[in-house]
């Protein structure tokens, strides 16, 4: 090994180390954003805790929500979290095809979740139980739709990342963006645990 080669090796190592450090800071910054998002959601939960019993003579959760439907919706999101996790494991093993397939399955499950949520909203509004009917329905629609909007933007991001993996492979930027999207996706699943427990199930018992 001559000196030029040794120098190049050193530089490569320095760049890799800088990338790792940079990625950690990026991930931490994104984590701070997630924490601020968590504050938004908890304030919406608090709003629901205050307004959620004001039915204004209209129907309550027991009449409006259906357990089996909600269960399937919940499992869609939980499964998509796991398939995303498997994609991240495949990414670390540099299996491009497995990552793309995993991300597509994740996207389809997420689409199933959003589709079910929108269908539920449509049914409620068509039956005359829109967000304008009572304090309960206002706070319900605000919280659940805020979560749904997050998932929708997550799906958009997911499509962009699938295209980037296909076109750029696992470049440094693509990998660091996938790590952040995975945090975002798992975070939304945690918020959903709060939604189905405190908004749907608690109202129905």
């Amino acid at each position, binding site marked *: 090994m001559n000196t030029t080669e040794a120098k190049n*090796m050193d530089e*490569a*190592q320095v760049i*890799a*180390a800088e*990338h*790792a450090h940079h*990625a*950690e*800071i*990026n*991930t*931490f910054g994104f*984590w*701070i954003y997630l*924490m601020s998002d*968590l*504050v938004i959601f*908890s*304030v919406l*939960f*608090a*709003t629901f*805790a*205050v307004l959620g019993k004001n039915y204004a003579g209209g129907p309550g959760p027991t009449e409006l929500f259906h*357990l089996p439907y*909600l*269960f399937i919706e*919940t*499992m869609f999101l*939980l*499964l998509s*979290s*796991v398939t995303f*996790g*498997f994609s*991240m*494991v495949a990414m*670390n093993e540099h299996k491009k095809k497995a990552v793309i397939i995993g991300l597509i399955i994740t996207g389809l499950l997420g689409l199933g979740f959003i589709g079910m949520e929108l269908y539920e909203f449509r049914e409620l509004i068509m039956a005359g139980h829109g967000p304008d009917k009572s304090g309960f329905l206002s706070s319900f629609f605000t919280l659940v739709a805020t979560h749904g909007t997050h998932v929708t933007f997550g799906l958009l991001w997911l499509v962009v990342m699938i295209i980037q993996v296909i076109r750029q492979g696992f470049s*440094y930027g693509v*990998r*660091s963006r996938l*790590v952040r999207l*995975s*945090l975002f996706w*798992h*975070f939304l*699943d*945690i918020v959903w*645990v*709060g939604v*189905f*427990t*405190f908004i749907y*199930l*608690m109202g*129905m*018992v």
Partner: protein
Amino acid sequence: MDQPHHENENMGAGHITKRNYLIGFILATVLTVVSFGLAAFKESMPRNVIVIMLSVAALLQMLVHLYYFLHLNKSSEQRWNVIAFAFTALLIFIFVGGTIWVMYTLNLRMM
């Protein structure tokens, strides 16, 4: 060359394995089924008991997600994420707990 390459994999998001995701998925599914089961058989127990059990199941499931999916743990790599999370939890406790406390006592006084 291999060493820095491997350090680069985590990118500050913790170490991940397929096994951990599977364990997390099984635990989360069990807790989800328990929650829905409690709601389905709500006549078998007093409402207060069901509400407490639902809250515990949700809290446990959130911890399962945090540990197995978001990889929050005691490692030094995760320290700042955990500190930020703990501070956010304190804020949420003040916001949500304070709101519920103020509004419920107000409600009682207006009766």
